[in-house]
């Protein structure tokens, strides 16, 4: 626990040093929420209650999609790729810590700051201005929290895998554009899966991406409930386990490559 706390403190110091940038991030997320709010309002004037989801639920979905981007704010792949490029990765590897665990601790620390400094204040504004809903009851809120943590772990490991690839590919900037858009699309950050055409939906349903945004937010707005919610959480859990194994194997492989290169 101590180690997570020390990374949280480090992230907080980083933010205090770049206060203006973080204020900008905050303004931006409000702007994004505002944008998505209008898009859904306009679409819903054409088809009120489309697909059995009310406008309030849909707006909440959209705003939460933007807020979760702040929640899952940590980007270990950039860190790894920069360290590899500059060669400073050897100091990370010399630390008496498992590298995968070290990156996870860093991400958790950064995320705690992201949540308290960015996501929660932005959501507060959204509650006041954009009429975003609270979860229907406490139990739903609790299941949402579990699903959100699993979503964070999912995305962390996907990012970590991308970061490991940077050891081999060196420059992951371009790959990440493709990667980000896939996560946004198949994860249902902006458009929920129930609107997808059948063929794309079938693909999105089996891949891990829907566990990052779609499952937690659907639980939050109450379109996934009861036994279905439990199944959704199991889905996230299975993918987290799979991705942990893949991450560790991939990093082991990349690590050997790194040693051969001489760092």
């Amino acid at each position, binding site marked *: 626990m101590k180690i997570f706390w020390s990374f949280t403190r480090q992230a907080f110091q980083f933010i205090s040093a770049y206060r203006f940038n973080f204020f900008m991030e905050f*303004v931006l997320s409000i702007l994004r929420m505002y944008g998505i709010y*209008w*898009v859904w309002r*306009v679409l819903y004037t054409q088809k009120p209650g489309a697909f059995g989801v009310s406008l309030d639920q849909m707006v909440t979905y959209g705003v939460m999609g933007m807020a979760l981007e702040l929640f899952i704010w940590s980007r270990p792949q950039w860190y790894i790729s920069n360290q590899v490029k500059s060669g400073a990765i050897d100091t990370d590897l010399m630390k008496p810590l498992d590298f995968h665990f070290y990156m996870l601790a860093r991400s958790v620390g950064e995320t705690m700051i992201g949540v308290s400094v960015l996501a929660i204040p932005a959501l507060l504004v959204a509650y006041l201005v954009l009429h975003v809903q609270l979860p229907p009851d406490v139990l739903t809120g609790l299941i949402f929290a579990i699903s959100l943590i699993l979503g964070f772990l999912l995305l962390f490991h996907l990012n970590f895998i991308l970061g490991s690839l940077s050891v081999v590919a060196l*420059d992951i900037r*371009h790959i990440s*554009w*493709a990667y980000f858009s896939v996560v946004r699309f198949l994860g249902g950050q902006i*458009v929920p899966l129930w609107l997808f055409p059948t063929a794309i939906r079938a693909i999105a349903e089996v891949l891990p991406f829907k566990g990052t945004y779609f499952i937690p937010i659907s639980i939050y707005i109450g379109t996934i409930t009861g036994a279905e919610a439990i199944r959704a959480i199991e889905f996230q859990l299975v993918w987290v386990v799979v991705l942990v194994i893949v991450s560790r194997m991939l990093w082991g492989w990349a690590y050997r490559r790194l040693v051969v290169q001489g760092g």
Partner: protein
Amino acid sequence: MNGFQLYFRLIQISLLSRMQYRANFIAGILGLIFWNVINLGLIGILVTQFTSLKDWTLWQLVFLYSLWVLGYSLYSLFFSHTSELENYLLEGSFDQFLLRPASPLVQLLGRELQHTEIANALIGLTGISLAYTQLDLHWEVWKWGFFFAAVVSSAIIALAINLLIACSGFWTGRSRGTSIIVNQFYGLVQQYPLDVFGSAFRFIVTGLIPLAFMNYYPALVLLNKVDRTNPGWWLSYVSPLVALLLIGLVSLVWRLGLDRYSSSGS
């Protein structure tokens, strides 16, 4: 050498150095194609499920999006590194520009060519031609002229806005924060017609940061959507004028900034 010759010589040098990294070039192009296809896919899903967005149909939205991508790609291809000005000012490397016997502006503009942006230009062109046939548009000669003027204006507006932000670094030292904000407006104006948003947003992207002139207003003309009963209808025709005004403003601010510049000394 005059300014133009110098510019092309600089571009040539930068291109030669860029082509050393061929795998990166291909990865960049694939990344861009992916990015755009997925953006359009999201719009496509929304519009097919809800039939239209206000009174914009799917292919009209594709046109709106592609017009932006085309204009913006021209800007990015030649000038996207202007946002680096902040770093040159902070590190003091801007001094090099002043020491050489050539216009600092030409040196800044000619520093790089973002050649992966060619993919964006092609995506924009493809989108526009698909929309043109799907919407069964038949432009008269003047509309073709207006189309080319609109694309060039769009690139100039993007350049001017980015240069203005970068120039603010002459006074404040930092300009990144402002540019991040403006970038966010880009995404919204690019993908959704202004009709969707509230009047405050419309005012900002028309009057303050005139991004709507890059695609929304000219698209109204090109898609025959100008509504003469609307008091602001003439705005649809003035993109080239806005671009000219902005050029004037930028050259003024650039000169003031240069006078103001004192090296960071590092």
